[in-house]
């Protein structure tokens, strides 16, 4: 007799939302898996967790996580999350979204949330293109890459996300690929224990949409690239953290302490409140 046994991590997922929408070879499942491992290892209270996503393939993560979750409009996850975190600083607010969502349409919110040091934790799955809409060029598409809107090769310089995050004031900045599952999980754990704005970039394979136009037809081929090119350079200068066919610089780049916006805010509110004597 076969007995049905629930997966030990089933409690972290909304099983009614399965099957997920992701393609074979996609890295989003690995990102979600590492996130869940981190939650489990930290024994995070799921009742006090809010997962916020924008639009795009990875944007569905919010719905798949069995916590309070909100799937915003395109680019606005961080701005929405800012309201959540300030209104209830007890909540652990995690934004999981993609490179186009967070750095093209939502780029302004990213740099300002980092500058203010709002204590939200941002994980970006960087797959180098707009996957959900069929593979258009985006803010992280490498020079000369072929996409559905750069058929002659991309002529836009891509963002270096970890450099941008560090320059904007994030207190924790790391980059890993989906090959680095243990390091990524450790990194997420570290981030979840920090105050202030934190950012992890996860270089993620998109073989079906991006890879097949760029000589990496399968998830395995993309993972081979990550394996061959990745170099761990912890606390190296993030401005030099390249992503190229030859080299992907990964590691932790920033890990500093800085008082968060919400702590300053609520300390100030408490001071003013004490002085407010009544009419």
């Amino acid at each position, binding site marked *: 007799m076969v007995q049905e046994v629930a997966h030990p991590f089933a409690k972290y997922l909304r099983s009614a939302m399965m099957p997920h929408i992701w393609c074979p070879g996609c890295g989003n499942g690995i990102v979600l898996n590492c996130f869940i491992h981190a939650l489990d290892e930290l024994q995070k209270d799921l009742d006090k967790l809010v997962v916020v996503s924008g639009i795009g393939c990875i944007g569905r993560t919010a719905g798949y996580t069995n916590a309070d979750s909100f799937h915003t409009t395109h680019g606005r996850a961080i701005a929405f999350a800012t309201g959540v975190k300030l209104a209830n600083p007890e909540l652990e607010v995690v934004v999981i979204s993609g490179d186009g969502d967070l750095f093209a349409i939502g780029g302004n919110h990213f740099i300002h949330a980092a500058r203010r040091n709002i204590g939200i934790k941002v994980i970006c799955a960087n797959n180098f293109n707009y996957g959900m809409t069929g593979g258009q060029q985006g803010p992280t598409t490498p020079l000369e890459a072929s996409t559905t809107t750069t058929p002659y090769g991309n002529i836009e310089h891509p963002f270096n996300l970890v450099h941008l995050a560090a320059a904007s004031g994030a207190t924790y900045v790391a980059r890993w690929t989906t090959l680095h599952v243990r390091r990524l999980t450790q990194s997420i754990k570290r981030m979840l224990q920090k105050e202030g704005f934190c950012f992890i970039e996860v270089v993620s394979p998109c073989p079906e949409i991006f890879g097949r136009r760029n000589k990496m037809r399968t998830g395995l081929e993309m993972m081979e690239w990550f394996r061959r090119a990745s170099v761990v350079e912890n606390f190296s200068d993030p401005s030099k953290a390249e992503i190229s066919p030859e080299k992907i610089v990964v590691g932790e780049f920033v890990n500093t302490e800085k008082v968060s916006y919400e702590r300053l805010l609520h300390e100030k509110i408490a001071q*003013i409140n004490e002085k407010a*004597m009544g009419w």
Partner: protein
Amino acid sequence: MTKKRTLPTGAHFMSGDIACAEGAIAAGCRFFAGYPITPATEIAEHLSERMPEFGGIYIQMEDEIASIAAVLGASYAGLKAMTATSGPGFSLMQENIGLAVMTETPCVIVDIMRGGPSTGQPTLPGQQDVMQAKWGSHGDYGIIALAPSSVQEMFNLTIEAFNLSETYRVPTLLMGDEIVAHMWEKVVIPSASEIRIVNRKKPHVSPSEYAPFMPEDDLVPPMACFGEGYRFHATGLTHDERGYPRTQNSEVQTRLVKRLCEKINKNADKIIRVEEVMLEDADVVVVAYGIVARAALSAVRKAREAGIKAGLLRLITLWPFPEKHVAKIAGQAKAIVVPEMNCGQIVREVERAAKETPVTFLSKLGEDPHTPQEILDVIRRCS
């Protein structure tokens, strides 16, 4: 009025923007996110000072898109939340107003209308955003919009906007104009116990039974907030009662979108407020709102003095449109006059509801709203 944790109960001389800010606090608003813009900036300035006194939060965001997004986040985290802007910012907010509609997020958006289009006339009044208030975001939806015509109403209707927004889980718009915002007038602020406050209804089932978008008889679903243990999902995608995306299902789409419209339309009689002045025997009725209604009232009184049976229907609620009230006056009056500070917006709704009764539109753009004399001249012509 500073460094005080209670409402400034009593009579005051204050501006419309400040009255709006005080109304928000009186309504229980404890989160404001905004971006500076004339002529709404004073609301933000005042709340930056007042919010902390009440333990509330003020944040200046990087733009209006972020402001409304943060307001939605704060509302889902359990606070009553508001933003305030003018035309250009109101345009930027439209996509997330749609998200608020779709996720049934209680929140208040104040739009202090100035001259448009585009940057237009930042320091001058207008009524050019009233159709955008109804139709500004893509897709079909019901929404509530109120039009204050005095500083006192900037206070009162801000509270009303919060109450309606909490009752129907819909973004509620306070459509002021530059004059009511910047004008200083006497305002009477009641004591807290005299102010009616409505809070969103909470779920009365366990988390495992909770469906965040399952409506009750009034077509409004009870609302859990983040961190309360319900672990629910909300999305801007078409979703079922559990909040789960159902993007390929026409039945779910029909059920959801119709309910988003009907929860406002079917409750319209409870939502709509108008002021009726000397309508009983009126031959000529002026339909007006906002600052223009003040001149209209003066014109109607002057017309009565001159022996013309004139009346005023002042629209306090713009959306849902008070079409029954207009239809009623259309049945008895010979003519309707609609003065507006635009090229003809609410007049279209009046014409639609008035059917056969002739409607005369009086447009005014720029520095000054209509004078009573200008409206009186039209009343005379129509009588």
